[in-house]
């Protein structure tokens, strides 16, 4: 049984990042896309926290970054949900494929 190292966390975060990107690319529901974005942001957060644990000289910064990103993700979700709700009120759907009035 090998000790858990930085690499394991980086692989986990890379996997989470890939899941998030896949979710963004394939979901047609706007809320689903937002969930994919949250996965991507949390993948970055895992990186920050892992670096805090394993890199000397990065003790405080990484944790501060993680807290800032959590707050920012909440703000972004609030704004995005408000905009999705506004779209729903106008169109009666949250399917991004139905957002096709603007093109050319």
């Amino acid at each position, binding site marked *: 049984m090998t000790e858990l190292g930085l690499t394991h966390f*980086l692989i986990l975060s890379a996997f989470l990042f890939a899941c998030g990107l896949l979710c963004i690319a394939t979901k047609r529901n706007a809320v689903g896309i937002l969930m994919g974005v949250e996965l991507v942001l949390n993948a970055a957060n895992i990186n920050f926290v892992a670096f805090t644990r394993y890199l000397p000289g*990065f003790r405080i910064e990484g944790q501060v970054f993680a807290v800032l990103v959590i707050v920012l993700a909440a*703000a*972004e979700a609030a704004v995005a949900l408000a905009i999705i709700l506004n*779209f729903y009120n106008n169109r009666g759907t949250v399917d991004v494929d139905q957002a096709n009035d*603007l093109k050319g």
Partner: protein
Amino acid sequence: MPLDAELARLDATLAHDLLRFGPELLLCLGIVGSLFAKLFRAATRVQLVPFALLLTLVALGLVASDAQDSAVFGGLLRLDSFANFFRVFLLLTAALVLALTRLTGLPDATDSADFVTLLLGGTLGMMLMASANHLIMVFLAIEMASLPSYVLAGFLKGKGRSSEAALKYVVYGAAASGVMLYGISLLVGQLGTAYLPSAAESLGAAFRSGGFSLSLTAGLLFLFVGLGFKLAVLPFQFWLPDVFEGAAAEVGAMLAVASKAAAVGLTLRLLFVLFQHVPIPAVTETVSAALAGVAVLTATLGNVAALVQTNLKRLLAYSTIAHAGYMLMAIACIQRPAAAAVLFYLAGYLPMTLGAFAVVAVLRSLTGSEEIDAARGLLKRSPVLGVCTAVFLFSLLGVPPLAGFAGKFQVFTAVYRTGAFHAAGGHPWLGTLFNVVLAAGVVNTVVSAGYYLKVLKAVALDDPTDETPLGEGVAVRLYLLLLTAAVVVVGVWWDPLTDLTWRAAVGLG
């Protein structure tokens, strides 16, 4: 204890740092003030835009009188001549957009508090983008600039298209910033610091010890994906025409001028600071070549797609993509004279683009239409508006002696000199590349004549569908004449502005 010493040092400079951060703090005051104004019933009937305009002008005065150059808040921000150029630029744009919204009546009294909050908030984020000196500040500033922009794009109440624009903007924007953050996390881990000057040293050391690792390359790539999205360069330009067509023209002006300028500033800063310790012939020139290729494709796509547009806002949207391409041509040089040329281009870009969007906003408020047909016979219906429109269009096209020509001339000269520099420095293929870029720039300018002259023909030669005078107010005329004067002055009288942009570019990195 080094932490105590560090805290004592931060404490000693805090008052000085806060003073230099005064303009941003003033904007914060405006944001908080207009949020609180919503609490009082009497204040909800008051139009807050004039107050915000006043505040912005005071902040502008504060920045203009600031000539120091130092990192503040423990190195998180760098307020140098480069940052100050952009702070002045962004505050000026915010003030002009606020004035425009008063003239066209976009936010009514009940909405003005929300509009002011969002506009000042976005401006604050953009000012931080131009002065960020730390990777986490880069990300926070981009998000601070983006979140209000998403909402502003959907500001037209009850309009399906406006809400669709906001939805597309927020979905693509959130995805791009997520990818960018992941890139920053990889970079920070590999370089061991997020402070840009130290990160640049680690980057140089990493390169000297045998090239870039996979995660370092991926981190840099993801970082530039985020920047490319904000700049709307190929292949991340798809959101921009939809957002501009759906959003109000006033908001479009803000996004086209301020948001793009802040992204240009941040890109220049990152390129110059991050790659300063990397030996020139290797990585810097790979980056140069890649950016030059992207620049040519972006300008070409913007100009070709604009040829077939009939909606004025969509046409201007593709035109701004093309202009971002021209600016990227000079950014790709990664040389100080070229950076000065980009700043000069931006200074000319401000009045002509803002003017073009202002004309669309005025047309919408008076005729209710934003199609090219609404501009038919504008010269007969309103001579002042028609002449101003013609000046803006000629300047966007790059006809001397207007601002657009001066900017294009400086950018193309910088590209030519970079090509000659590389050819003389033993990199003939880079010399050839930049000469190709120059040729592409000139061909693009010729192509762009197709759609600018199409609008101009409608304005000047076509018979109006409705013969009645447009009846715009005196204030609208004065506003447009002011912007027209700025376009002419920048185009004729280069020296003071060239000095200013040189000084700003010297402060870079």
